[in-house]
């Protein structure tokens, strides 16, 4: 089983980002996803910088995947996706249909990211014909759906593509044209002052009685809890999951990677380190809430 570093969802200063990946070059992860997936205005690193970083990590022995924006609206955003593909040297993570089509038009393989809607075996078949090489199930699909899908797909005599599950991190739940960080600071999106850079793990949102609930991260909303599928290791292996995705966080990432590295080499599943991912068990995504 491989470990992957998912794309950095937050906005960090340039030096912090570069330092993070310098360290990551020595971590026991086989795959690194790079690129801005949330907000096209975040330009501490431009496409060229991400590609340069990709070259460096590739030279360090990592498989590098370039991740595309989850929401593509403006011409400038479309151009950003195009520039990423123009390089041609890296696998692309398609996070919306824009990237799928651009890969398809160029005959380039892609990873179907978690914000692409892929819910059944027939759609997997269609997307494999378009160039899908690896599938990251969307956050609301649990063990049952993934198991059913892969079984039905294999039943038709197809070789399964690689499957990568989100094993660690805050779940991306939604995207909007609106920037919620700008809204929280009462500034216009067009003059946001990049306030999200002050919140390296997102901005906490709680209910009116103080229950931690969500994280605001620019135009993206995440769940508050850092989810952990480590304890499901035995099931993940049996399911044929090939990669465990670990989402970067500002502190303690090395320890997280080491924890999963040890876990994948152990016969017994590791102790729980993060929160339960309710979705995986067919429950509400937020841990501790009752089933309907």
């Amino acid at each position, binding site marked *: 089983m491989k470990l992957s570093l998912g794309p950095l969802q937050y906005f960090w200063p340039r030096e912090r980002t570069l330092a993070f990946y310098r360290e990551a070059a020595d971590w026991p992860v086989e795959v690194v996803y790079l690129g801005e997936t949330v907000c096209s205005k975040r330009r501490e690193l431009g496409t060229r910088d991400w590609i340069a970083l990709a070259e460096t990590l590739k030279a360090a022995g990592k498989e590098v995947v370039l991740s595309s924006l989850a929401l593509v609206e403006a011409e400038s955003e479309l151009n950003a996706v195009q520039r990423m593909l123009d390089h041609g040297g890296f696998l692309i993570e398609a996070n919306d249909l824009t990237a799928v089509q651009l890969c398809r038009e160029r005959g380039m393989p892609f990873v179907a990211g978690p914000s692409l809607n892929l819910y*059944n075996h027939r759609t997997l078949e269609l997307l494999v014909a378009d160039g899908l090489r690896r599938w990251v199930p969307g956050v609301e699909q649990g063990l049952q759906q993934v198991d059913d899908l892969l079984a039905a797909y294999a039943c038709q005599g197809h070789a399964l593509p690689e499957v990568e599950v989100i094993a660690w991190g805050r779940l991306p739940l939604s995207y909007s044209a609106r920037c919620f960080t700008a809204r929280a600071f009462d500034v216009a999106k067009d003059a946001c002052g990049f306030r999200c850079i002050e919140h390296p793990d997102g901005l906490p949102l709680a209910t009116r009685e103080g229950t931690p609930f969500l994280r605001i991260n620019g135009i993206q909303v995440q769940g508050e809890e850092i989810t952990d599928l480590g304890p499901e290791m035995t099931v993940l292996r049996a399911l044929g999951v090939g990669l465990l995705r670990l989402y970067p966080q500002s502190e303690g990432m090395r320890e997280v990677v080491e924890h999963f590295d040890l876990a994948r080499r152990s016969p017994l599943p590791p102790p729980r380190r993060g929160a339960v991912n309710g979705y995986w068990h067919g429950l509400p995504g937020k841990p501790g809430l009752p089933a309907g």
Partner: protein
Amino acid sequence: MQLVCPAGNLPALHAAIDAGADAVYAGFRDQTNARAFPGLNFDEAGLRAGIAYAHQRGRKVYLALNTYPETARLRAWQAAVDHAAELGCDAIIAAEMAVLDHAMREHPNLARHLSVQGSATSAPALRYMHERFGISRAVLPRVLSLQQVERLCERSPVPLEVFAFGSLCIMVEGRCQLSSYVTGASPNRHGVCSPARFVRWEEHGDGRRGVRLNGLLMDRYAPGEPAAYPTVCKGRFAVGGETFHALEEPTSLNTLEMLPQLAKAGVAALKIEGRQRGVAYVTAVTRTWREAIDRQRADPANWSARPEWQKALSAHAEGHQTTLGPYHRAWH
């Protein structure tokens, strides 16, 4: 521009047609559509009657089959497509690739519209759906600015339909998991957002109220303060020491004043949201938009949004407030 109106049941369908809708959209009474609410939608006899009513008057009926079936339920969705074709619907509105693919192969003459839930926000995304599944129209997600809509109209391989009025989803449709994060039930999989069976109102005796979604507090209200339906995106929460509508206020989208620009851009159809709303809403909103569209078409140079139209629409808006939403840059 065609006016496409919601029909949550047969009386609403009749109301929409009578008030001047060019087409109505409806759903089966199950989870195959994104308004799978108790007591709403159509059984076979109802839909047959509705289609007959519309066709006798030269109008169209589109069937929303716009949720995302997992493997175990794909056959049921495919059967729903077959059923829509048998009943003589004028088009299906679908989002999921396997559903669209089935429709294209089995019922090539049944028009396929890409649902707003399909989340296509760019020209390449629209090209994908057109080349792969032969869609003949696409409904755009409510995240694009007017300028972006204009540009897409130029570049899209198919005619475009946009939302003109009704409750406003502020997240990209088809990719919002806020409801399932709290309840386990999602628009994509179950055709519902923050379903009523999870909603609990708390009365505190002194007139104060609170509202919970699956136990989680979505908002509190002072005595006499108007309360909103507790979808997660419209609750009040604490961020950085302040409590406010952190995602969006309860408000409705109203693009009436943009009618000339939408017409000029080449938008093919305007969609009214609200299959969950009653006959009074459907009648008033349809009638208002019919008149506005007709007058704009007849005399574009002298058209302006009349105050009485705006008043009629505001009366039916969520929280009696309306916004231009994402069409207007200031909203972002």
